[in-house]
């Protein structure tokens, strides 16, 4: 059939290009996740800090990044970072040129947005572990840092998993927005394929299916992980 030729690998088809696009999509999501999680903790700590400045900064951070559309955050960050860093480099080395890569811009803005939601996941998970654990660790003479790493974090994981799992799925889907600043991930590659082949339904339909599969796969993996980490805590449903 004609459509199979469109999706074949090699010079005539778009199969290999789409596969690379899928790789970029996954790479972006996977690279963003650790930063987003670390930022979530930092934002949460800012929000419960004993310094008032830090607390209001944390509040402002979540309000802003939860209210702005992801695409607007992305565009502002992409152009503004370009302008500021370009200006800085110009003042050091006149005539030098700088451009931020869409991949990095996507990573930063997605981390910002996801961590705004993630800080609430952290808050809920810490609340579920309870302050008593921390106090007990301290009374045993553990330093706050060790107490957090050795006592709180291993217990936190179980409670934070559903929240971060959902955020991972949101992150996976939000990578499609980075196509707007011309990162050649899945959605962008499909757009390119359509400009030459004029088969929008085939390509957009195909990538829609790919995204649905990725999300379904993630959700299944998440459910299995949750069952695993909850072994011994809750009755497992059959």
């Amino acid at each position, binding site marked *: 059939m004609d459509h199979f030729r469109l999706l074949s690998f090699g010079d005539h088809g778009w199969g290999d290009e789409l596969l690379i696009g899928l790789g970029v999509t996954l790479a972006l999501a996977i690279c963003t996740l650790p930063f987003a999680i670390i930022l979530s903790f930092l934002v949460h700590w800012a929000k419960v800090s004993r310094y008032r400045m830090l607390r209001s900064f944390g509040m402002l951070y979540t309000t802003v990044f939860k209210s702005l559309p992801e*695409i607007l955050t992305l565009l502002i960050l992409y152009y503004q970072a370009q*302008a500021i860093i370009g200006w800085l480099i110009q003042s050091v080395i006149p005539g030098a040129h700088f451009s931020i890569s869409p991949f990095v811009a996507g990573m930063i803005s997605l981390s910002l947005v996801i961590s705004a939601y993630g800080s609430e996941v952290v808050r809920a998970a810490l609340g579920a572990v309870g302050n008593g654990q921390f106090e007990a660790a301290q009374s045993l003479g553990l330093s706050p840092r060790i107490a957090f790493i050795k006592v709180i974090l291993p217990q936190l994981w179980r409670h934070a998993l559903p929240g971060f799992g959902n955020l991972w799925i949101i992150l996976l*889907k939000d990578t499609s927005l980075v196509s707007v600043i011309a990162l050649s991930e899945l959605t962008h590659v499909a757009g390119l394929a359509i400009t030459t082949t004029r088969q929008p339904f085939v390509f957009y*339909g195909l990538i829609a299916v790919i995204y649905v599969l990725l999300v379904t796969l993630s959700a299944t993996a998440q459910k299995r992980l949750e069952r695993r980490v909850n072994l011994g805590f809750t009755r497992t449903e059959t």
Partner: protein
Amino acid sequence: MFDLYLDYIDRWSHGLWLTASMSTLSVLIGFLVALPIGFVRSRAKGPLAWLAIAYVNLFRGMPLLVLMFLVYYGFGQFNSELRAMGLWWFFRDAYFCGMLALVLNTSAYQAEIIRGSLDTISTSVIETNAALNLTRWTAFRRVLLPIAFAKALPPLGNEYILMVKATSLLAIITVFDLMGEARTIFSETLDLGVYYVAAIHYLVLVLAIEWTLRRVEARFKWMA
């Protein structure tokens, strides 16, 4: 930055109006679509339930941007067939296509919210309905639905805010909402301040909606 707002005030207010109206409309239509799907997800078994699961997983699983492209550009590929069916006026228009994509997306999420709130109504309520000899339809309409609605109100409010943000994607398929207006003004002025003006619009709009939602939620809290 302030003059960027004043110079283009007509366009900004048009964009704001479009963003507010399209997101509100899509949430309301989406709710009507989601109600039967959520009910089926909560109560039904068999083929109907599978259909509902497929609907929810399909439209929650793909990015809204891809869904918009699929509806607007994808269906455009069949313009002769659509013309023959007399549906071309719908799929030709970016507003209608964007609206359809938004409704499909939000109804899938709202269906899960409605399912969740129907599932958490305690069995004693259902037993009380039986004890009062209410017919199933009356019990559903007068008791279960109001309780489910009160329970669903906070997550539905979140969904509304997510939709306000999601309408910004309409700009990519040439709808002139806030984001669309910002993009055209930016292409004329090449001033980054334009996006900050748009950001302030979104911030104010979302905060205003949140404030309103909190007041509405407070009124329904006793029932949830």
